[in-house]
């Protein structure tokens, strides 16, 4: 138990002082237990927010969404790991695989903390929204995910730089951006595969939906009609 409290202190110290995070990632004395703690912590924080998402449809769906949300981030990490590792060797700080895993876990944990801080906010809105407010809730969650991503990207960039500096290497500017793009690309598709998150009241609840389409396509289909209308309106201005 005491070691877990130590881990929490170490972890929070790394997030609040990203310049010290390099030591945390590279320190060989901190064992695999810390990585396990990170995975558990990330899962718990995301599960908290996931609960608030599914609560719209009741307690069962809340539990399902709470279980699914940690997998969204951890599976995305697993899919991206080989690409991250190779990029890190070519352009970044040349971490070994275990160091790379810990760095990415610390990075994801900062996002988990940012998202979990919105959990009370999300619980409040979910409990006070009527059954017709499905679209409002979905948009609210998208906004919260975007906000938490923005909040954590800055910290993540600092942690990456600190780790590279600890190794005496200069991190090429594009690396973090490329990682973020790849992570977002895979992550959005993963969220599409694992949907529903909120669950509308228009039909019976199902924990998963059949695979079909992709996030990018559905986003395009959402935006495309709007875009067309804007284009058709344009001549009116001139």
């Amino acid at each position, binding site marked *: 138990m005491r070691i877990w409290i130590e881990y929490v202190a170490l972890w929070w110290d790394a997030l609040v002082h990203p310049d010290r995070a390099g030591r945390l990632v590279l320190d060989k004395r901190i064992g695999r237990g810390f990585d396990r703690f990170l995975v558990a912590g990330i899962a718990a924080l995301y599960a908290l927010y996931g609960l608030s998402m599914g609560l719209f449809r009741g307690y069962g769906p809340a539990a399902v969404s709470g279980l699914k949300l940690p997998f969204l981030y951890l599976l995305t990490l697993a899919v991206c790991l080989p690409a991250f590792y190779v*990029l890190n060797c*070519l352009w970044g700080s040349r971490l070994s695989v275990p160091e790379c895993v810990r760095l990415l876990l610390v990075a994801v944990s900062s996002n988990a903390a940012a998202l979990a801080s919105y959990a009370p906010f999300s619980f409040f809105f979910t409990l006070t929204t009527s059954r017709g407010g499905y679209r409002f809730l979905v948009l609210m969650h998208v906004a919260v995910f975007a906000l938490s991503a923005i909040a954590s990207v800055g910290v993540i960039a600092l942690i990456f730089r600190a780790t590279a500096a600890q190794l005496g290497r200069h991190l090429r500017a594009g690396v973090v951006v490329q990682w973020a793009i790849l992570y977002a690309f895979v992550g959005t598709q993963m969220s599409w595969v694992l949907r529903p998150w909120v669950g509308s009241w228009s039909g019976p609840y199902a924990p998963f939906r059949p695979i079909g*389409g*992709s996030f990018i396509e559905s986003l395009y289909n959402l935006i*495309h009609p709007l875009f067309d209308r804007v284009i058709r309106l344009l001549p009116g201005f001139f």
Partner: protein
Amino acid sequence: MDMPSPQSAEVARFPKGIWKGADYLIHHEEQLMESLRRDSDLRQISSVLLVITVVMAALYGAVMGATNLLQGSALSPMPKMAMIVVTAVKAPVLLLLTLAIVVPPVYVSNAFVGARLSSRQMVALLMASMAITATVLASMATVAFFFALTSRSYHFIKLLHVLVFFYAGSVGLGYMVRSLRVIAVRAEAPDKCAAAPRCTPRWLFFGWVILYMFVGTQLAWVLRPFVGRPTEKFQIFRQRSGNFYESVLDSMESVTERK
């Protein structure tokens, strides 16, 4: 980039084993450049790089060929399995044939205006950049696997592969550009009477990039299908028709104009 001084730099020593070799390749840029500069052991290094290129490209090719299997399309099981093998062979062939076609013009144009390198050095350098491309491709295999597993659209997957190849190719070319610059700067020892070190000019790199893309895309078009359209019968090669660029535009249209 941190450049060790020529005195402290070591030459590359590839460990045994394909994974360790690939790992060494992406970790030890400086040592590899030093080997290239000193022209030491290049025959052996080139053969290691060749093996890395073939295995890594085959890995990605297998995932690319498995698309129909993963998407659960209407084809019968045998062609689906055969496609994996066919594409796993085709992907390394694509990379190596591109290299073979591109080496002569790159070597000659570099010899005229660029850094002074022997043909063996130039081949090893291009092999290294191709091995980097193949390794980046292989690192994207999990991403391609995931998207094939979770998407039903042939055109979407096709565009994804085009994007991944484009990305891997540009990482490989970037590696070549960096190495060539470092080698050119280091190659001219101060005691030689040569004036300033002659670097390969920027516009030449730009020309090579265009050359690579032109050859690579045409070759990919000749060697298709890689993914295999689910509505067509199994075939190792398709009839020659159309071109790469039109086909990409067609796929973009069919992804965006559904529904």
